[in-house]
């Protein structure tokens, strides 16, 4: 997956479960679970909300890696 994340790690720091994390950012438990597994790339709004709740920047949680096939470096 090109979008990696450390949401599980930051959620553990906040000491909340997926349901509570979902409530904090206005999303469902399934969505938090899907993001953590890398099955879903959140919208910019949700990513910003998550970053705000975790008190870090979006880039601290989400990192984008270009696919090797697509990379033009």
């Amino acid at each position, binding site marked *: 997956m090109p979008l990696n994340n450390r949401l599980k790690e930051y959620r553990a720091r906040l000491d909340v479960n997926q*349901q509570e994390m*979902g409530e904090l950012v206005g999303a*469902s*438990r399934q969505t938090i679970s899907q993001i953590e597994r890398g099955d879903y790339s959140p919208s910019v709004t949700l990513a910003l909300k998550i970053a705000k709740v975790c008190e870090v920047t979006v880039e601290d949680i989400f990192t984008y890696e270009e696919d090797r096939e697509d990379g*033009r470096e």
Partner: protein
Amino acid sequence: MAENRTIEKKPRGKESEKKYFDKFIAMIVFSLFIGGMIGFFSMGIRDWLLRNVRIEKEVEALCDFSGWIVLGIYAAGILILSIITLCHYAKARKMSGKWDGENEAVIDVIEKKLDIALLCNSLLLIFNMLFFSLTIYASGIFELGEKVSKEKYYDVSIFPVFFGGCFIFALGLALNIIISKVIVDLEKKLNPEKQGSVFDMRFAKKWEASSDEAERQIMYKAAYAAFQAANMSCLVIWAIAVVIQLFLRTGVFPVLCICAIWLVLNVTYSRTAMKLQKYK
């Protein structure tokens, strides 16, 4: 440097477009040929069958029991589908009681069981609708007036099969509503943000409104897959209906029904897409 980067433009791919176009034309020609052959031979096959195949006695014997046979299949189908649905729901409910709110493996199994229960419940509804019509038809209630006036006789099984069919239909619907309610209640318990009551006519809208972006994406992707499947089904069923029309003289009603569904499907899709694209 980013400013100096040039964006490579990929070739338009006219060759591949031509390849697809050729395949498309070949498929149309092949379909027309097959359709034409079926249409041409169907008339001959029908006449040959009418002249050479004598199965009236067997058909008559089967027809004598068809009402009871259909009623039996109807009852068995409703029973089996209800049991499968309730088993999945019961397992999900049992597991949900033990879920600690954290273990992902457990909640994944619960959600999967509930999804299967929902699918089985939909199958139960469709099966109920289909077999209610089949049972009423097989009961012979439509020919009752004609039989009594012409033959001064009617089959005593007509009323038991007819009312049996009505009873199973009502039972199936009740089961359907109860199962939907308990599944939705469990979903709401697992996901407290979810809203809507199955008894509310605006349930689907409220459920969608209480879903977040990831859940909506799943809904929309599933809906698009369903749209594509329905489009293809309409095409296939239309072709079958046209062939059967030639064999059995079923009239234009089946084709009209299929085209009506097809029309609603595509007009709704296009209208919604245009609205979302904000065309004036």
